[in-house]
């Protein structure tokens, strides 16, 4: 009996000590903890990157959390408002930068790391612009890409078209012909879901491609004028839906779902980040691999949106003191910069393993990256789109994110024919001015 009591007591003592031992053992003695929040994409790769970072910089331990992309901003806002689970480092986007910075949730890097401004000179200018608020730099690029128009060349050939469409009218014409020949029921599909932050980038790209502007230099709406590029874009989507060449599920799809339709061969035309082509042309993920091509954005000017997603540092880090700031700098430099060995370990890996676009200019000369990209995209065309046709989103202000959310629903109403394009742009302008006054 006594022996049994001793055995049970020993087991309990072991359990009580072993359970809390795990994280302590991982953290190591004297290690600085950083929490890192991302949206859910290639989380296993992120974990590997963290492990490599911790091996190279053993005095920093990183704890990862991921949230769904569609609800990412809502969740982060809830975290910041609640204050209980504020991360140290987190993914952000040019969409949300000004909102987060104006609320004081994220900290300007150049206030704490003077070397950051110098390093930013090696980033593409549109990316730096997308990470800057009131003259301060708030991030290091995670990836940067132009929005791009892509098509299934095999289906186009079957339909008798030797070249991709050059104008939006031609897109409709080719889509109607493809449908009429019974090749694909819905040749066009975009990610226009209310939860999809890429949806506004798709719309703005279409506006830019027609030479349109969203705002004038004083940030007054320019899209609400009669016959504006925005009005034409709305009417084009409405017509595509009405003619049955755009999948009506587009209003519920995010970019991933629209991409899946491309990969499955049930769709021909698609707008997404240019690096999305890596997955479309990868036989591991796509039935139609090898059939997809990158085209200039149809329209008068072929211009498009260039965007940046980046690593931001929350304001909680400076409050934690020098040790946390040092750890954050090492993290940012490793993940978004050249790292301790000057070889851009994480950015380079994203480019090679996932085809993600980048803003770190020295990598454009990297032979491995050029060879790797050449397997899934016309590199010269990609460079041309990125360098000659990509423009930063207009109207990046602290209220842009709120306006974007409002715009998604208003645009859907117009696409469904519940209100006219003119009424829609009037509502969008009204909301813009209301948010601006607030």
């Amino acid at each position, binding site marked *: 009996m006594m022996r049994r009591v001793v055995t049970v007591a020993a087991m309990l003592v072991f359990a009580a000590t072993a359970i809390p031992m795990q994280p302590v053992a991982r953290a190591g003695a004297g290690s600085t903890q950083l929490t890192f929040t991302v949206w859910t994409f290639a989380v296993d790769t992120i974990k590997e990157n963290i492990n490599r970072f911790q091996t190279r910089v053993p005095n920093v331990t990183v704890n990862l959390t991921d949230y769904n992309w569609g609800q990412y901003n809502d969740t982060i806002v809830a975290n*910041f408002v609640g204050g209980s689970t504020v991360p140290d480092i987190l993914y952000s986007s040019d969409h949300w930068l000004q909102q987060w910075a104006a609320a004081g949730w994220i900290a300007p890097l150049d206030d704490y790391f003077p070397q950051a401004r110098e390093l930013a000179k090696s980033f593409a200018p549109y990316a730096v612009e997308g990470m800057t608020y009131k003259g301060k730099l708030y991030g290091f690029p995670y990836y940067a890409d132009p929005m791009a128009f892509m098509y299934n060349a095999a289906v186009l050939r079957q339909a008798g078209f030797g070249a991709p469409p050059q104008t939006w009218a031609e897109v409709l014409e080719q889509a109607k012909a493809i449908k009429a020949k019974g090749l694909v029921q819905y040749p066009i599909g975009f990610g226009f879901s209310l939860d999809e932050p890429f949806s506004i980038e798709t719309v703005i790209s279409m506006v830019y491609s027609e030479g349109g502007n969203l705002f004038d230099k004083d940030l007054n709406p320019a899209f609400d004028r009669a016959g504006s590029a925005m009005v034409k874009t709305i009417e084009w989507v409405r017509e595509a839906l009405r003619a049955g060449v755009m999948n*009506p599920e587009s209003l*519920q799809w995010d970019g991933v779902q629209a991409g899946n339709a491309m990969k499955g061969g049930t769709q021909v035309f698609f707008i997404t980040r240019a690096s999305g082509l890596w997955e479309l042309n990868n036989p591991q993920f796509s039935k139609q691999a090898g059939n997809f091509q990158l085209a200039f954005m149809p329209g008068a000017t072929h211009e498009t949106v260039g965007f940046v997603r980046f690593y931001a540092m929350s304001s909680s880090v400076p409050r934690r003191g020098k040790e946390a700031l040092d750890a954050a700098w090492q993290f940012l430099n490793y993940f978004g910069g050249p790292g301790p060995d000057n070889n851009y370990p994480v950015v380079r890996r994203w480019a090679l393993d996932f085809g993600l676009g980048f803003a770190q200019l020295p990598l454009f000369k990297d032979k491995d990256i050029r060879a790797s990209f050449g397997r899934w995209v016309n590199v010269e065309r990609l460079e041309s789109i990125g360098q000659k046709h990509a423009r930063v989103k207009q109207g990046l202000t602290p209220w842009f994110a709120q306006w974007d959310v409002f715009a998604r629903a*208003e645009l*859907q*109403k117009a696409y*469904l024919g*519940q209100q006219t394009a003119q009424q829609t742009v009037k509502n969008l302008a009204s909301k813009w001015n209301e948010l601006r006054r607030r």
Partner: protein
Amino acid sequence: MARANSRQRLGPLILGRATARPRGRLQWYAYLSILPALCFVALFAVYPVAFSVRLATHRYVLTDPLNHPFEGLRNVAEVLGSYYFRRAGLTTLTFTASVVASVLAFGVAVSHYLNRPGRLAGFLRVAILLPWAIPVVMAGIIWKWIFNGNYGVLNALLVSLGLIPSYVSWFGNPILAPLTLVIAHVWKWGPLAAIMCLATLQAVPRDLYESAHIDGGSGWAAFRYITLPFLRPTLLILLILETVGGFVTFDLVYVMTGGGPGDATSLLSWFAYAEIFRFLDLGKGAALAFIIAAVTLGLSLVYVRLLRSEALYS
């Protein structure tokens, strides 16, 4: 009279205890006894409500975190005059009316069926409760897949039965999307209504139905004059629950439609969320939440008054 008698009987006992200890000490003991419960209620009910009142009467825009002037009822006025309030209010009323009617009809019909003796009755009484036991978010995800416009099982079934020529975009259509929410809501909450009605029906004396049968009453007459009067109190309770539930439905919208397409499924509760988490205006979000609470409270009071009615039980 009976109450007075019982007081007379207990009087000496109570007085005996009260006179044995000082009155002040007894009062302190009573207050001390309820203090933990009071703290609990204050922490989880009074404080959040008081804080919400503060939010609703001040300017709380998160992109302007240091500026919180008092604004009185301005947030309420702005919400009432907002671009979405009338349309979302109408959508909410339509949704609530639809789910209340559907859930009550489902509850009555299913309980009526389950109340009959049968081999499967026992199994069905348990099985019918399963959707109720599933968390709402899970229910939303299940129905989102069922209604999926590209891979959904409902489309596959309807096409294979020849009822529709090709797949339907349930969530992309502003008329069908609200219907999907109603169906999911009824699937989730209908079973509870059915079980509550069944419990009531099992208390109805069988001989009433036999008498009706002997007197030549039809099945409808028995339902109309025996079943329904017994069900009325239960139905009124369900009416309150479902009306409040319909008005504050948020989770199904969040998971299934995101308020779309356009604003076809954007209920008032959705906008309360959107004001706070998407437009970052805590003041307006709190004001809208109070408006929703006032409407549901008003309706509940009307129903409760009806429930208290003597005629209901006569």
